């Protein structure tokens, strides 16, 4: 029904806006996982992801009064994290997607995790342009629909849809297609 009234973090947000540090800490704890994951999968290394996560939350401290609800806060955090990661990736000519230490951390360690798919997914993420990478992560990590992704990245909805379609087609081709040798080459 009305999520904004029922969301307990809205009360924390109101307290944080009035200057209560503990309430801000609660908001950070609630959102740090999403921000960190987005930063990690966009930038590819833990150090860069931690720096970006910290910068985003410090920026939040200065913009807290502009945030109207916990839902708005989620939108704001995703937007700032995505845009700053895209800017960072564009500033650097070529970025290694992961360091060896981060390879395991890049994906969730589920019991039924598919290592082949994870390998292809990692290769796909490193091949995608920064905006296309953000689109894929917002869709499947943050579970946003294309309309929300378009709003978050300030991108036409048709561009979002075409990024998603192309990314999935590439992943499907690499995972189930007839080119396993190429995938093996990427992994070594």
């Amino acid at each position: 029904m009305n999520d904004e009234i029922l969301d307990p973090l809205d009360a924390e947000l109101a307290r944080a806006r009035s200057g209560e540090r503990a309430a801000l800490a609660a908001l950070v704890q609630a959102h740090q996982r999403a921000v960190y994951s987005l930063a990690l999968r966009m930038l590819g290394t833990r150090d860069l992801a931690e720096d970006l996560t910290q910068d985003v939350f410090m920026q939040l401290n200065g913009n807290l009064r502009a945030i109207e609800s916990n839902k708005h806060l989620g939108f704001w955090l995703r937007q700032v994290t995505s845009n700053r990661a895209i800017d960072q990736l564009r500033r650097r000519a070529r970025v290694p997607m992961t360091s060896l230490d981060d390879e395991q951390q890049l994906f969730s360690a589920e019991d039924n995790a598919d290592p082949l798919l994870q390998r292809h997914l990692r290769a796909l993420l490193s091949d995608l342009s920064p905006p296309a990478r953000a689109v894929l992560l917002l869709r499947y990590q943050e579970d946003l629909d294309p309309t929300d992704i378009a709003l978050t990245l300030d991108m036409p909805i048709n561009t979002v849809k075409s990024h998603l379609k192309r990314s999935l087609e590439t992943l499907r081709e690499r995972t189930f297609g007839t080119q396993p040798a190429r995938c093996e080459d990427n992994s070594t």
Partner: protein
Amino acid sequence: MSKEIESRVHAALRPVAPSEEFSQKLLARVMAAQPVQPKPRRLLGAGARPLAWWLTASLAACLILAVGVQQHLEQQRLQQSGLEARREVVEALRMTSQKLNLAYEAVKNQSTSLSDEKSGV
């Protein structure tokens, strides 16, 4: 096939938690940061920015005008002193010419009287 791969990507891309050490460091930094105070309202209203722009533009225009006028006056002063110098040179030439005429007349009179004396003998 499409739904299957989407659900598998979805599962693989579940959010991962940062390290406990980083999480503690982040919280400590956020707690230590100064809460942002609301900005005091400006005395000038919403039109302050255009007003400031107009003031700056007017000052710049006045400055350009003053420089232009000063250059024009300097040019006029130079022109005036040039005319004055020319007038003085013309005056000097006129005076020199007068003196030369007087000298010529004197020499001419002297030579006439000498020839009269010779013819009188």
